[in-house]
């Protein structure tokens, strides 16, 4: 690699990172679906998928093949270009935001950071911006299907996502005040001092913000108990009623990719990202250079997995909200609480300094 210029090394390593992360994210999406079906099955006292492969582990492949081979129906009354563009927008926005997530320790090879595709100084704002663009995928899918159920589902989804985006964004302000930066890497580093005690949820005093975030995140991803946009008993399947084959699969993948992103952000902002809960109990070079690079990734994956299991647990436990309850909960409870949290956090920081 010595004969490559710095720009060429940067380009090659970036392409490599993007390829690896994309493949891993798609695999993670496929296996999150399986995890949900298995875990939900056990919650409801049944086995879940168990026929394809050992313990049903090949089920995602079977699902993928089935969806590929299904006929791709296109309703005559549908608005054709938008009908096709909507699932693409939804999936693209869901996958892009993983690009700013630092999923490991600070490891550089030839001046290029390895465990982060792009460390932007406005990483958090980029994630919020991409989430707000993702609304278009759902809004357009419902409208372009030319179907009452789809339109109602997408109206519900859009208004729900816009309403909860406020509470979501405001709940993150306390964390930003603590870290004094919008870069996700800096936010993680600001929590790395004393292990679990310096994480934002404990030592940072952001436990209220965390609960606001996690509730708003459930609403943002249209998951139970806020899954009104696709309430089967009222709306057939909501905004993706008219979609079939791979277009439906893209919406499905977008939902699970969004779940993964939201879990990543929760563990980065409130649970110290890739830092170990034990702090500096173990020496920094424990187990040699390769193992000490892998441990942070394992911590990060464990945290994200815990959040995914929480998502599924909540889905298996709580009933669905009514629509007016959802709206008044978001606007009259979460939003004022998030504002109060900002005021209290900034007062505490001002008094301490």
């Amino acid at each position, binding site marked *: 690699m010595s004969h490559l210029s710095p720009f060429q090394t940067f380009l090659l390593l970036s392409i490599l990172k993007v390829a690896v992360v994309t493949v891993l994210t798609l695999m993670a999406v496929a296996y999150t679906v399986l995890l949900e079906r298995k875990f939900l099955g056990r919650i409801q006292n049944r086995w879940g998928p168990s026929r394809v492969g050992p313990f049903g582990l090949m089920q995602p492949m079977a699902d993928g093949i089935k969806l590929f081979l299904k006929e791709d129906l296109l309703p005559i009354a549908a608005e054709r270009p*938008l009908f096709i563009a909507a699932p693409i927008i939804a999936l693209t926005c869901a996958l892009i935001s993983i690009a700013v997530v630092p999923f490991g320790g600070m490891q550089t090879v030839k001046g290029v950071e390895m465990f982060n595709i792009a460390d932007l100084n406005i990483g958090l704002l980029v994630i919020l911006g991409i989430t707000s663009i993702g609304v278009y995928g759902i809004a357009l899918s419902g409208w372009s299907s030319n179907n009452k159920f789809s339109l109602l589902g997408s109206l519900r989804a*859009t208004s729900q996502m816009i309403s909860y985006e406020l509470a979501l964004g405001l709940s993150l302000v306390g964390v930003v005040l603590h870290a004094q930066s919008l870069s996700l890497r800096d936010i993680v580093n600001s929590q790395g001092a004393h292990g679990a005690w310096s994480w934002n949820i404990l030592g940072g005093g952001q436990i209220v913000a965390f609960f606001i975030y996690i509730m708003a995140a459930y609403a943002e991803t249209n998951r139970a108990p806020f899954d009104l946009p696709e309430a089967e008993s009222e709306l057939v399947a909501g905004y993706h009623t008219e979609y079939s084959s791979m277009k439906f699969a893209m919406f499905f993948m977008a939902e699970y990719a969004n779940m993964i992103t939201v879990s990543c952000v929760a563990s980065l902002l409130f649970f110290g990202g890739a830092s170990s809960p034990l702090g500096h109990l173990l020496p920094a070079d424990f187990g040699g250079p390769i193992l000490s690079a892998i441990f942070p990734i394992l911590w990060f994956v464990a945290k994200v997995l815990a959040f995914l299991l929480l998502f599924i647990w909540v889905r298996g436990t709580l009933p669905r909200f009514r629509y007016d309850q959802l709206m008044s909960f978001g606007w009259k409870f979460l939003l004022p609480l998030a504002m109060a949290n900002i005021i209290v956090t900034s007062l505490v920081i001002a008094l301490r300094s």
Partner: protein
Amino acid sequence: MQLALFLIFGGLAVAGALNLLLQRHPINSALSLVVVMMSLAVLYWSLGAEFLAASQVIVYSGAIMVFFVFVIMLLNAGEEERTTGSRAAYLVGFPGAAAIFCLLSFVFLSERKALGYTNIGGYLNHVTSNISEISTILFTKLLLPFEVTSILILVAILGAVVLARKEQ
């Protein structure tokens, strides 16, 4: 690299703006406007204003345009009929637009020194965060105008609530 970004997204912004005028369906026009705003955000970013770019995406394309699309969806506005338009619009409109374009470019070119200028991508190479600079100015020098603007927006929200509320 930065020049390529400028050419691509500048072209995209112009194409989106033309498409906005030429499309017959309101929802296509609204989506073209989203494309224009996103390309403008990329241009801001390539000029080193990353915070402005992010707020452009979050506020304009993420919030305001979603409401535009929402309203169009709810009203179920159909395709517009294409008419020849009034003669006066053609007679006055094109020279008027050309005059405004010439005036603006004249002002920008002649007052170049006073306005200040930046290289394309000039700020991308060294890492400065202009978020802290913006917030320092916003909360010290421009505090009063900033707060007055927020009260103005609050008044607008209250007005909308009063107008939209059902009579008891």
